[in-house]
């Protein structure tokens, strides 16, 4: 559509889309599930439809919610050194950072590793459940927008790599025992990643528009 058009060129709004990366006007094409639509000028991914997006998002985010309390409040690791042992969970990481006087750091850790991942899962479960049942709610657009804005602030995968670095760091000075929280956390991470990969923004917005009528 960026070639020169014979004047005048009239189109419906539904027939065109614009690239969020470079503002190029393009013809609105629906790719098949598994195919990507990319901007020819800047390479931005415009559409990436998923098969059974709503069902899969609902299943994964709901499972994530079930694992969440165990991942956060069950001990993740126990260290054995010099006849003493010590264990901790993810919630304690926030508390002890707060108690050591670094409130701002503690707040960021709490938001990115506990609160935002939980809110993201709640929002995804809520939105996909509404869409699955075909039930409209005037809060759906707001919930969806909140999810999009929180997306990059939930940092479970960064936390996972941090956990691995920690394990290697202390591996030589103490014996490490993996507790139930560790496995729940890995499960939670897989569910959270899976649900955000399966969520097809385009389809969700279209369905939200449909159920609102």
């Amino acid at each position, binding site marked *: 559509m960026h070639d020169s058009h*014979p004047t005048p060129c*009239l189109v419906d709004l539904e027939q065109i889309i614009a690239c969020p990366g*470079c503002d190029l006007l393009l013809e609105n094409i629906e790719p098949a599930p598994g195919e990507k639509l990319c901007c020819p000028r800047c390479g931005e991914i415009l559409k990436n439809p998923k098969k059974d997006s709503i069902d899969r998002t609902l299943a994964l985010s709901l499972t994530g919610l079930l694992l969440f309390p165990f991942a956060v409040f069950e001990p993740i690791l126990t260290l054995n050194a010099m006849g003493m042992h010590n264990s*901790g969970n993810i919630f304690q990481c926030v508390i002890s950072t707060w108690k050591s006087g670094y409130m701002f*750091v503690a707040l960021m850790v709490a938001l990115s590793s506990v609160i935002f991942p939980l809110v993201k899962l709640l929002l995804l479960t809520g939105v996909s459940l509404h869409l699955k049942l075909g039930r409209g709610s005037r809060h759906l*657009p707001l919930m969806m927008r909140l999810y999009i804005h929180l997306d990059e602030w939930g940092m479970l995968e960064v936390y996972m790599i941090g956990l691995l*670095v920690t394990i290697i760091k202390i591996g030589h000075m103490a014996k490490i025992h993996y507790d139930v929280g560790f496995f729940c956390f890995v499960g939670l991470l897989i569910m959270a990643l899976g649900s955000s990969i399966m969520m097809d923004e385009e389809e969700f917005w279209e369905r939200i528009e449909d159920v609102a009528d």
Partner: protein
Amino acid sequence: MSQIDISNCETAREADLGLCHDCHKLMPMEGRHEVDCPRCGARIHLRKPGSISRTWALVLTALILSFPANFLPIMEVNFLGTPDASTIMDGIIYFFKEGSYGIGAIILTASILVPCFKIIGLILILLSIQFHWKSWLRHKTILFRIIEFIGRWSMLDIFVIALLQVLVNFGYITSISAAPASTYFTGVVLSTMFAAITFDSRLLWDA
């Protein structure tokens, strides 16, 4: 449904169409400065308002904060009552000396290379808009997309300190706690992430 004339229009701006930041719906602006998205309720602007100056402000904040973040100690190890404070670089050198090159490289990338890359990259992109450098547009857009993607990974070191603080806590014998640089370092991560959010990559193509 009324039709829109897009003759000789390459971009949405030329056709006077605004793209919703949140749900990517196209809306005719009809000469207005801002409209509300009928689908999601977000405010639609042709470009993110005040993008260049906000991004500059946040990048410079990150640049200033990165000095105390790197030169002050970020972690303190107490062993038998003797405190030993270490900066980010001390931690990395420790791993390389120990022979754990993999871990050393991960922390070096997440804590030093990524923040430097983000700050230098954003400054280059901002300068290129202000001085109308029209070349390498596609590459600069990809550079911005990489900056956007890697932003959160710098939090790695902060998470490691939070975990060590809880797990390595054997009272008087040995314990680990955060040190002043952790606040500044979190500030660097936060301001670079906000800088990427306030920046509008379409400005590169407008110039």
